[in-house]
């Protein structure tokens, strides 16, 4: 009950602040002018607020519980992405004054077609990234109120779409900055208090030793609300709805919906898609026996390192920086703020494995962050901390989903919906219609894709971004020889190869694990292919390099205050 109140309060505050902000800030150029007063610290917190999504708040700890410590490469990659952004993109792109990647593509390469192609890819990435946010919302609301999964998905989808359509959340820096601190507080305080309360890590054998996760003294009671396929790591006696049963070691069997009871010290059966790992195996960040092989780790790092710059809702936040050097200062601060946040999810993964082994049976490891406070600290303390975590999780879905939907609606209404614009009121109407329409496919996908991990879905969005917009931005900013045709060819190859491999991996169980891992995280193949395509096609097309390339590069790279950039021309 407390948790539901906290969620409602966070949602209300976000919607309210957003709507209030709209009265003050009307247009992008107002926003732009007003934002010159925004300091790098505020900007950095706002970027962190928009970036830290369901994948960071729930997904990392969930994936850590499921796969093992190998999941901790994920936050490293999420942070490293900002280093790539800082080194190659932040300052030049701010100087060019392009608001979106589609803007950049058109102004740098002078091709309207390329703009349309980029816009289509923005829809793909944004859609992929919205699904896990909605999925997180469904999961959280079910944990807190017991409502069915689809209720949370539809409710948050509707609130976010309504809010964006009404004009809320449009680049409101201070709201997003507030969300960052709320999220960090909501993940840090429970982590620290729970560690203090428990006096450190319990159950070390299952975490780092030779043990599997086992039912605690007093046994384990798990309610299954749907039939679940599980594997028993050891010969097990258990009961369902009071009827005693037995399973052999390594037996795979479907448990019907009902109440499962495991006696004390029984190794917990694991749901489909989870390996029963002993502690020593589980705690290894990389190894060729578990699910996190070196190939998978490197492909994940490539996708996150290069993909961050291509996420549609991230670049737009950089335009609230007054100039190139300020964009750099902001990005360095983002690195600091993200590092602070990412110190805490690991605590939930470790404690969750020790205290919530039933999640291995149900397969819902993504809910470990939400469940942990009440499991570790029965009573009011746990309930209050649980409410705080739930509120933080909702802040994560709301801010990221809103940022994404603003980008999607903007892309549909400005880049794709052509002809007959003009009047401001017509543009506003189109933006609203686009916002309401763009939320529908992600909602449908979130309802269908219940079994997929939040972090894996986000990994795909990163893979797609790294295989398309990363080469476009890097070559566009640093190489005068890029042509519109080369860029278009690279975008097509990158998006087809990356999403093609992902879908192939879903449809077909590859025999070897390395192949399977490459199919689920294809960046290490698709990114070099996209780069090579852009370079080769541009070289073949050399005569067509835009005549304005030098002027554009000057606008990207000339320091401010010399009368050379866009500001003075």
């Amino acid at each position: 009950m407390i948790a539901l109140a906290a969620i409602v309060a966070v949602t209300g505050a976000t919607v309210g602040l957003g709507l209030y902000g709209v009265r003050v800030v009307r247009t992008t150029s107002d926003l732009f002018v007003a934002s010159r007063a925004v300091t790098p610290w505020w900007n950095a917190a706002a970027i962190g607020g928009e970036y830290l999504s369901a994948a960071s708040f729930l997904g990392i700890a969930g994936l850590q519980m499921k796969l093992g410590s190998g999941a901790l490469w994920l936050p490293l990659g999420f942070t490293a992405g900002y280093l790539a952004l800082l080194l190659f993109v932040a300052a030049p792109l701010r100087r060019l004054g392009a608001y979106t990647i589609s803007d950049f593509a058109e102004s740098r390469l002078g091709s309207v077609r390329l703009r349309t192609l980029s816009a289509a890819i923005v829809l793909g990435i944004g859609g992929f990234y919205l699904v896990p946010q909605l999925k997180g919302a469904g999961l959280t609301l079910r944990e807190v109120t017991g409502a069915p999964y689809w209720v949370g998905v539809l409710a948050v989808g509707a609130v976010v779409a309504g809010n964006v359509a009404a004009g809320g959340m449009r680049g409101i820096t201070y709201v997003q900055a507030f969300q960052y601190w709320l999220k960090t507080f909501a993940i840090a305080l429970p982590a620290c208090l729970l560690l203090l309360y428990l006096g450190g890590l319990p159950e070390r054998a299952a975490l780092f030793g030779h043990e599997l996760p086992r039912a605690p003294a007093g046994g384990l009671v798990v309610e299954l609300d749907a039939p679940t396929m599980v594997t028993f790591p050891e010969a097990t006696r258990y009961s369902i709805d009071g009827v005693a049963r037995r399973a052999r070691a390594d037996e795979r069997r479907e448990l019907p919906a009902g109440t499962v009871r495991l006696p004390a010290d029984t190794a917990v059966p694991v749901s489909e898609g989870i390996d029963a790992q002993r502690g020593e195996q589980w705690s290894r960040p990389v190894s060729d026996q578990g699910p996190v092989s070196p190939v998978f780790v490197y492909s994940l790092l490539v996708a996150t390192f290069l993909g961050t710059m291509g996420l549609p809702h991230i670049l737009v936040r950089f335009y609230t920086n007054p100039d190139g050097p300020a964009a750099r200062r902001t990005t360095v601060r983002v690195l600091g703020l993200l590092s602070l946040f990412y110190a805490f999810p690991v605590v939930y993964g470790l404690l969750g494995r020790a205290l919530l082994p039933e999640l291995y049976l149900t397969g819902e490891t993504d809910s470990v962050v939400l469940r942990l406070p009440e499991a570790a600290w029965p009573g009011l303390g746990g309930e209050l901390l649980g409410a705080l975590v739930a509120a933080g999780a909702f802040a994560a879905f709301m801010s990221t989903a809103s940022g994404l939907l603003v980008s999607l609606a903007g892309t549909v209404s400005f880049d794709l919906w052509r002809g007959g614009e003009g009047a401001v009121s017509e543009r506003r109407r189109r933006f609203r219609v686009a916002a309401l329409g763009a939320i529908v496919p992600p909602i449908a996908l979130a309802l269908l894709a219940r079994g997929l991990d939040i972090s894996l879905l986000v990994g795909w969005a990163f893979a797609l971004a790294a295989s398309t917009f990363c080469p476009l931005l890097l070559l566009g900013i640093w190489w005068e020889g890029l042509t519109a045709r080369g860029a278009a060819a690279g975008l097509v190859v990158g998006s087809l190869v990356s999403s093609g491999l992902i879908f192939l991996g879903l449809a077909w169980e590859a025999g070897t694990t390395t192949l399977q891992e490459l199919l689920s995280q294809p960046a290490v193949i698709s990114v070099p292919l996209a780069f090579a395509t852009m370079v080769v096609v541009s070289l073949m097309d050399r005569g067509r390099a835009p005549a304005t390339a030098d002027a554009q590069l000057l606008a990207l790279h000339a320091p401010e205050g010399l009368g050379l950039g866009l500001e003075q021309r």
Partner: protein
Amino acid sequence: MSGRTPRDELRDTTEHGGLYLRRLMRAQLGLSLLTVIAFGGLAGSLPLALYLLPGLQEVEVLGLPLPLLIVAVPLYPVFIAFGLVYERRARALEAEFRDLVEPPE
């Protein structure tokens, strides 16, 4: 013609101006690539090192196996350090370019 400054050449995007521009871009790109190589060498070799040295798992620091601790904590301050150093160097390169275009009296 002798009155033409680097700024004029740059503004009119002449061939001469193109040389100035490319020099700035090369310097900036060189700095960025150097940072990526240094950082990538450090962070990028870590998965391989942990893979090749499975014995590290037996070493415990603060009650945690060392590899887990290495992945969870010490790289983040390194990110920030690389970011800060890069940001200062990039600013210095821009100051040099400014001196070229607008020589101090």
